[in-house]
């Protein structure tokens, strides 16, 4: 490269001393949230392999675990009693959608750790924006990806013998999103405290797996021992998976009976609106923690 080739370019604009404006206002924050969210989706879209792989685990659960347990339950002659008016496969199917959302949300949000590892996070943190925009954009980005990964699984409905209607799918979208948002916000809050990838393994083993097992994804939450009843009701994921199940199974069940599969507290079925509020509340608290951590400086 010779210096002549450099001279051919257009003349650079002189520095405008009045240029840079800090974008801490609402407009700047909205733009920043948008672009952080958009980048996550762009990366998600480019990673087709991951989208394909996101089918694998739920399929394994449904086909092998689901079929195996169904057979065992029917051999024991207790299938009808255990999962109410639906088969075990039908019962488990919404739980597997919830599982996908659970893992995809937390993984998506914790991609912040990769950004930290590979330096990109620095580019975001030195920008003249309120750092809350980074936390919010990341939570929304993780939530959107997880929602898509969860909703993709609706194509499996015919295989497990679950009917879907336009109405049930439309009602499902906001609930899947709320679950995804609450868990993504939790993921961002966790990642905002971590400096290395090491913490990820701990989160996986000591938080995600218990949350999954205690969420009602795999077994009904009625008639459990007291300690398990308490733990499952303290789990925020429970309040996401239960409405997903009620909405998905409603068209399959006789009219007005979908509450039979619903979550109960002290013998009362919890209204879905209350479950939505629990998810929103949990998500906002987690987002608050994330924002506070992001605003700290060395």
């Amino acid at each position, binding site marked *: *490269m010779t210096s002549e080739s450099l001279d051919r370019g257009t003349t*650079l604009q002189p*520095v405008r001393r009045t*240029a*840079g404006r800090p974008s801490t206002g609402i407009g700047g924050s909205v733009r920043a949230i948008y672009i952080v969210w958009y980048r996550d989706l*762009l990366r998600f879209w480019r990673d087709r392999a991951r989208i394909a792989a996101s089918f694998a685990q739920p399929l394994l659960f449904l086909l092998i675990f689901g079929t195996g347990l169904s057979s065992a339950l029917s051999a024991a002659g207790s299938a009808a009693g255990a999962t109410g008016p639906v088969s075990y496969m039908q019962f488990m199917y919404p739980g597997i959608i919830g599982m996908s959302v659970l893992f995809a949300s937390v993984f998506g949000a914790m991609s912040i750790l990769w950004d930290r590892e590979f*330096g990109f996070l620095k*580019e975001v943190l*030195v920008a003249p924006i309120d750092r809350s925009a980074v936390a919010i954009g990341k939570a929304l980005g993780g939530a959107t990806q997880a929602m898509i990964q969860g909703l993709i699984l609706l194509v499996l409905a015919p295989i497990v013998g679950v009917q879907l209607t336009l109405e049930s799918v439309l009602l499902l979208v906001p609930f899947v999103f709320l679950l995804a948002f609450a868990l993504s916000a939790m993921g961002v809050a966790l990642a905002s405290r971590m400096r290395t990838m090491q913490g990820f393994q701990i989160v996986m083993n000591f938080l995600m797996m218990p949350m999954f097992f205690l969420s009602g994804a795999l077994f009904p939450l009625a008639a459990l021992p007291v300690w398990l009843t308490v733990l499952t009701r303290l789990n925020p994921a429970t309040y996401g998976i239960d409405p997903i199940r009620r909405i998905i199974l409603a068209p399959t069940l006789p009219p007005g009976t979908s509450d039979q599969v619903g979550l109960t507290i002290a013998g009362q079925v919890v209204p879905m609106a209350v479950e939505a509020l629990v998810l929103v509340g949990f998500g906002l608290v987690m987002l608050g923690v994330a924002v506070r951590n992001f605003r700290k400086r*060395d």
Partner: protein
Amino acid sequence: MTETEAPVIHAAGLTKQFGELQAVKGIDLDVRPGEIFGFLGPNGAGKSTTINMLCTLMRPSGGSATVAGFDVDRQQADVRARIGLVFQDPSLDGQLTARENLQFHAFIYSVPAAERAQRIAEVLEMVELTDRANSIVMTFSGGMKRRLEIARGMLHTPEVLFLDEPTIGLDPQTRRHIWAYLRRLRDEAGVTLFMTTHYMDEAEECDRIAIIDGGRIVAVGTPAELKALVGGDIVTVKTDDDESATAEIRERFGLEPIVADGSVVVEVEDAAAFMPRLVRDLTVPVTSVSFHRPSLDDVFLKLTGHAIRDEAAGATDMMRMFGRAWGGRH
């Protein structure tokens, strides 16, 4: 001082404490608008810590600093909007294209919507990456990534561009190339460049240099001014016994030699006349003797008593070089 001559970066008594360790021990600094200012020192001298404080990434433990007229501690957002940064380690998103990386930057820096596309085209043109705008960054060479980072740092028309070791781990040809862009930025756009380096040849390119060692600035000036501090010629003698040679030179010639990098280094007024006398008079066997005009290496050695190279090519540099060569996912 008139309005235009006001320093664009001003630091007074800036310190940074990490627990027991004081990494920066009171730095006073004035950088003028439109100059290329180099921060020269070995690894661990406090260069990166200082630059991080000036960029609002770290909070000073003491003292104060302003950049483009704004306080780095109390007016962080104002400072950030007026500076561009090129980090020591790559900070691009390797899974996005060059253009997408720049778009991301334009959004978080609030570049007005009407100007975005044009600014992006301009900076890509500046670093000659226009034809690679839509390629995924992962496929770029180390030099191309660095150029893209410089383009990104300039996208929001900052007044000051901070560069932390901008050419570390790059081959000499790429380094010259990067320098051509940097000079053009200064000459045509009038941007002030503030960079850290531990490469002497890179420091020579700067308008002014601050030599930093052990968390303190030991000298500030143009490369010529600093070299004038050394005065005469630099004679390097390799002997079988450096310690006796040092003692003899001190005794017989009344000079102050320094042992560095396995040779005895001494500053004399006229090397051509001194060398024959040295070889004749020394009782210690001399294996080689040479001289050169003072370089910044010699300035550093004289001011700090140790060579900058001692720590320069450490393990971290090696890792960075391999990292650049092989590339990560980013």
